[in-house]
């Protein structure tokens, strides 16, 4: 008889703790910008902007970034466009930031006046990788480059796809950030065989999944007696299982994943 291992039991990626653990924890800042996005933006600012604009954002005459308000960029979309295009006449080059970095830099610029960089940070990438592949056991389900499992979503370029805030919440409250495409499915065939997996493709009559043993399946819906789309993430929260520093490091590592292979 075919024996199927329950996906929920296997899909571990435990990370935990309230950490990221600024005093604010995973809560949103007073504004709409998550603290971790602001923190990520602060790091970017230090690396790429500080030379011209200065630590306080006022090194260029007539420009005070700490105000959070800009003449030519009322909305965040305006601001992103301005940063991408640059201002050649004023000597500012264009910056080709990906979505995560752009979200971070905007979050930081909007909160530069009130943000205390010492309270929130994304941590050390190398240590974060060690957590990812070690204590966090993330590779049991996820894959980065050529390491890890195909069972869960591939994270090779997750740092380009998700904001820092979203990633942090994924670690603490996985279900809150689960994309619909990653909802686990539970199939029970007419003979009672259970297949748990992740959808790769679906049409009116059939479904293609990666099961929890990394096998590809293509199943006709007429051969199923049950087809359940699970709306809770099989990934457990890392709250309480990783220290705040480990969570910060793990977040730093995830943010660094931008398409390596």
């Amino acid at each position: 008889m075919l024996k199927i291992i329950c996906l929920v039991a296997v899909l571990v990626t435990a990370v935990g703790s309230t950490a990221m653990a600024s005093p604010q924890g995973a809560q949103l800042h007073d504004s709409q910008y998550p603290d971790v996005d602001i923190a990520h933006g602060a790091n970017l600012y230090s690396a790429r902007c500080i030379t011209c604009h200065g630590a306080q954002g006022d090194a260029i005459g007539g420009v005070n970034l700490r105000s959070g308000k800009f003449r030519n960029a009322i909305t965040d979309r305006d601001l992103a466009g301005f940063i991408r295009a640059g201002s050649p006449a004023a000597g500012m080059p264009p910056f080709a930031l990906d979505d995560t970095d752009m979200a971070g830099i905007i979050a930081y610029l909007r909160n530069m006046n009130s943000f205390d960089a010492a309270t929130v940070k994304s941590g050390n990438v190398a240590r974060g990788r060690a957590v990812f592949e070690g204590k966090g056991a993330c590779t049991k389900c996820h894959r980065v480059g050529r390491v890890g499992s195909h069972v869960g979503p591939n994270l090779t370029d997750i740092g380009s796809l998700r904001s820092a805030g979203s990633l942090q919440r994924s670690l603490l409250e996985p279900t809150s950030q689960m994309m619909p495409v990653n909802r686990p499915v539970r199939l029970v065939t007419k003979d009672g065989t259970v297949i748990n997996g992740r959808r790769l493709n679906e049409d009116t009559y059939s479904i293609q999944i990666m099961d929890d043993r990394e096998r590809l399946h293509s199943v006709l819906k007429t051969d199923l007696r049950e087809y359940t789309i699970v709306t809770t993430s099989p990934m457990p929260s890392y709250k309480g299982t990783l220290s705040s520093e480990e969570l910060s490091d793990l977040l730093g590592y995830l943010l660094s994943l931008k398409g390596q292979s």
Partner: protein
Amino acid sequence: MMTRKRRLFAGCVASLICLLSFRVQGQVTSQRLTAANSEPQNWLTYSGNYQSHRFSLLDQITPANVKNLKLQWVYQAPVAGNWQTTPLVVDGVMYITQRPNDVVALDAITGRAFWIYRYTPNPDRIVCCGANNRGVAILGDTLFMGTLDANLIAIETKSGRQIWKTEVASTTAGYSITHAPLVVKDKVIVGVGGGEYGIRGFIAAYDANTGKEAWRFYTIPGPGEKGHETWEACPPASGTFCDPDAWKHGGGSIWMTGSYDPQLNLTYWGVGNVGPDYAGAQRPGDNLYTDSVVALDADTGTLRWHYQFTPHDVYDYDSVQVPVLVDNWARTGINALIWANRNGNYYALDRATGRFLLGRPFVKVNWMSEFDERGRPIQTPQPPGQPTYPGNQGGTNWYSPSFSPLTNLFYVSAWEDYASIYGPSPVEYNQGRNFTGGGPRPFGSVPGAPGLARAPINTWTEAAGHGAVIALDAATGDQKWKFNMTDVTDSGILTTRSHLLFTGGREGYFQALDARTGTLLWKTNLGAAINSGPMSYRVGNRQYVATVSGLSLFVFALDE
């Protein structure tokens, strides 16, 4: 293998549904590739096995029931253009390439996609003659694809994600890769196209795990290398243009997949035309190893032997045809390599030594008269303005042939009574520019006569030639039967254990013949030219036959 079979059996007795969903998806080891005939349900290499027989051991579909074949599913490609891929099927999953360089994993029963890998080749790529990709190779859980911009890419079978990419050659210098790679042991072997752009061709092997180059064999030998002497010095003051550096852009492209003999550890590859194609006066000599077959040590790339089919070619008679390996040829005990060449001749060579065993025309040939005792053709150039047989597209071309060990017949898509008139003209090499040195024109005053161009309207007549499937006795080259078509054909051929032959043509018919007699048993009109090689596989208890026609992949089986 026994372990896999037991697992499959244990899994499948549980229920019928297992046929749909529970398929053993094991690693495709080098041993499995070598023993491909022991798992006829799968199609593990471009030509089905290392011997390149394009012969399926499946026999559920027979001459008696083939008339009951029904279309099971269709996969339509999103990008228009001549589609020449042959799918691989591994344990119920089909892997195909589609233009320009996508790879798609499909459920082999329903045609539904598991994933699509998309690759956008360099827009400045330079590719001749209907830029194409003919398929992937597999090892372990990795697929390998050459690209139009001359990269080799490794892709995960389970996810379709890229693992590594290696630049094989410069695309802006006219290099490309269009054929399916060949995996031998832990290496991925590919060659480069670009014979119309003055490349210096080569075959190279790459570490399957890292993409690092392991060896390279230049099909145009450089100074100091054996064979370089066949790029002779220009005669003094001959009065015609002669290129003293002809070897540097001498062509010798590779654009069809080679074969492999595990016992000899030799891999065989057909080499394309010399550059420039037609202006022979500017490149005196035999121009090795163009229009040759080369036998290379699979571990080192060292040349063991070669045979040149068309020395000093001026007709564009690429010898890129798939090398077909036949054991105990003509009951002589010799393990041979058989070959129907674009130049119109059928050959048999000792594949251990390259010794010439047999050569004789399978279509009308007038560019040569006979072979000398070593197998060198005695050439008979035709006067200017007179037709040369076979014409520019050859007696056959790149279309995959098939060999049935059961009938001992070699099946070839041929262009019969077909000629061209050649008009060479001098040409200087400029990187990335066309480097053919003149061109052919069809013989016969018929607009639209056969050539590379394809159209649904056939306005030429019997005066311009026609296509056929011919069955040659592999031992003698005698023609045992012929199936004529009105139009020409670019289709490959599949034969099966049950003596079926599947093939297509430009007319769009997909047809099944009796491989013993050539009798038509079944046909269906798929509506567009068939330019790929059909293949067969089995999932559960059901045999399928697949072919590409136009922009679609069609899959047939008997109704359950």
